[in-house]
């Protein structure tokens, strides 16, 4: 990184940073992250209610149901009494070929003639058990939302790691991965800033840019929000926790030169993520960057002791090693956790 470290990017004031970086003793960051994480878990506990208490895919061709009370086998065991369709295609019924009713008549497994598209939510209804005249109750079958959220996190963290498989943020990555302490500092600072700025960007996008058709202002707004976040974190940290600021303040100026920080809001605007998904994506992006930095720095500390050909010393060899990391990270490709 060639941006002068030492001067504040925004208001030209010198940043008082010490050369040695003390490990951050403060626990407030992880607690904050944990709290947000718990908040994100909440929607995962929502369940269907009514006649059917729990639904879920149990295989490529199977849906499992739990009933809130025992059902008569002649109805619940009959494939014809179930109406199942994909939520997006309510007019096309899926053929249930077999029903396996449990002995206690409180759960059943439906087997289908054709494989299901488990990525789409499905709807199950039991019109045969609905009293005449009443509305037919429908029940949604979908992969757990919590799993979806976690898969966004894992995806950004490992499978589509921004550094090793999306090739973003490389300048800062190579600039700050020489020492483990620097790597940790940069990684944590970056994660904090990206989570805050991505959430702000999401609000801006959802409530200002989209309704007013100002999408072409994305770049300006997002980069502006990033600068603002960096400045805000800088100011708050300086006042609230000077020790933490001394540890991480140096890296704040570098955050803005990292393309991941602008890539994340662009991605979430493209994919129309909701708040929790935004949070997970930004956390994954930051965490993935931290992970990549930490791994790379520990390797580079070891490489400093090696007899590397002169032409390769420094950055070229770091690239070669990053390429090897990218090869190793191919192992995660196609990973589908939930």
């Amino acid at each position, binding site marked *: *990184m*060639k*941006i002068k470290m030492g001067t504040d*990017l*925004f*208001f*030209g004031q010198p940043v008082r940073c010490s050369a040695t970086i003390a490990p951050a003793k403060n626990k407030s960051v992880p607690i904050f992250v944990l709290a947000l994480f718990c908040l994100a878990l909440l929607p995962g506990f929502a369940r269907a209610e009514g006649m059917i208490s729990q639904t879920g895919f149990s295989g490529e061709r199977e849906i499992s149901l739990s009933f809130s009370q025992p059902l008569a086998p002649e109805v619940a065991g009959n494939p014809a009494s179930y109406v199942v369709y994909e939520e997006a295609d309510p007019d096309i019924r899926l053929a249930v070929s077999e029903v396996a009713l449990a002995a206690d008549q409180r759960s059943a497994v439906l087997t289908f003639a054709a494989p299901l598209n488990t990525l789409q939510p499905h709807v199950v209804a039991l019109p045969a058990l609905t009293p005449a005249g009443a509305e037919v109750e429908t029940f949604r079958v979908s992969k757990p939302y919590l799993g979806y959220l976690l898969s966004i996190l894992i995806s950004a963290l490992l499978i589509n790691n921004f550094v*090793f*498989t*999306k*090739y*973003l*943020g*490389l*300048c800062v990555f*190579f600039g700050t991965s020489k020492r483990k302490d620097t790597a940790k500092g940069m990684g944590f600072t970056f994660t904090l800033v990206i989570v805050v700025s991505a959430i702000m960007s999401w609000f801006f996008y959802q409530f200002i840019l989209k309704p007013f058709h100002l999408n*072409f*202002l*994305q*770049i*300006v707004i997002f*980069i*502006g929000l990033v*600068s603002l976040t960096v400045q805000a974190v800088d100011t708050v940290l300086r006042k609230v926790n000077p020790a933490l600021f001394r540890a991480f303040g140096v890296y704040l100026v570098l955050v*803005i*030169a*990292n*393309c991941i*920080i*602008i*890539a994340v809001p*662009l*991605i979430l605007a493209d994919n129309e993520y909701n708040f929790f998904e935004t949070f997970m994506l930004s956390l994954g992006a930051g965490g993935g960057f931290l992970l990549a930095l930490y791994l790379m720095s520990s390797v580079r500390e070891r490489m400093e002791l090696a007899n590397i*050909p*002169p*032409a*390769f010393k420094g*950055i*070229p*060899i*770091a*690239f*070669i090693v*990053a*390429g090897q990391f*990218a*090869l190793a990270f*191919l192992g995660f490709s196609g990973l589908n956790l939930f």
Partner: protein
Amino acid sequence: MATDKSNFQLVVNGILNENPIFRLVLSMCPAVGISTTVMNGFMLGIAVLFVQVFSSCTIALFQNKIHPRIRIPTYTLTIATWVTVIDLVLAAYLPEAYAKMGIFVKLIVAFAIITMRLEMFASKESVTASFWDGIGMGLGFMFGMMALGFVRELLGLGTILGYDVLGFKPLLFFVLPFAGFFCVGLMMAFFNYLESVYKRAKQRV
């Protein structure tokens, strides 16, 4: 303060001495990510050239009006504006090339190279000098990208600019995205090696 270099020297400086990819090691993301063909390199090079030249000129033009304390935000705003412009233009007129470059056009806004040039050069020099410096930097970036694209396209697909040159595909490896790391590393080392050979030859003379 004015630079003592001629316009030509400014351009050459950007291409050789301070090549943004191989010498300054800045803006590496596209160099790794999308340098798979010469065309890709050329297209993104054009985009960067445009943004660099227009931003440099803008800043040089308004250098007396920019308050020193909001220097950086002004730079960011300028760059973001020109990036938006090129982004919209590319999306409208060259949709296929734009699709290949993906998010990288928008990410020009975070390229350290442009901010750095504004801070170090355009904010102090005349509009003309800034223009030529911008051209040099943009061309330097473009040539770097095209050199990478040349190697990767030739070795990976056996083609140059889409024309079949070798008639077969030597090694799929080179057009795989992650191979960018290896290609950049090896080419940087190659240039380092050339430089050391050149220096040694110069000493001997």
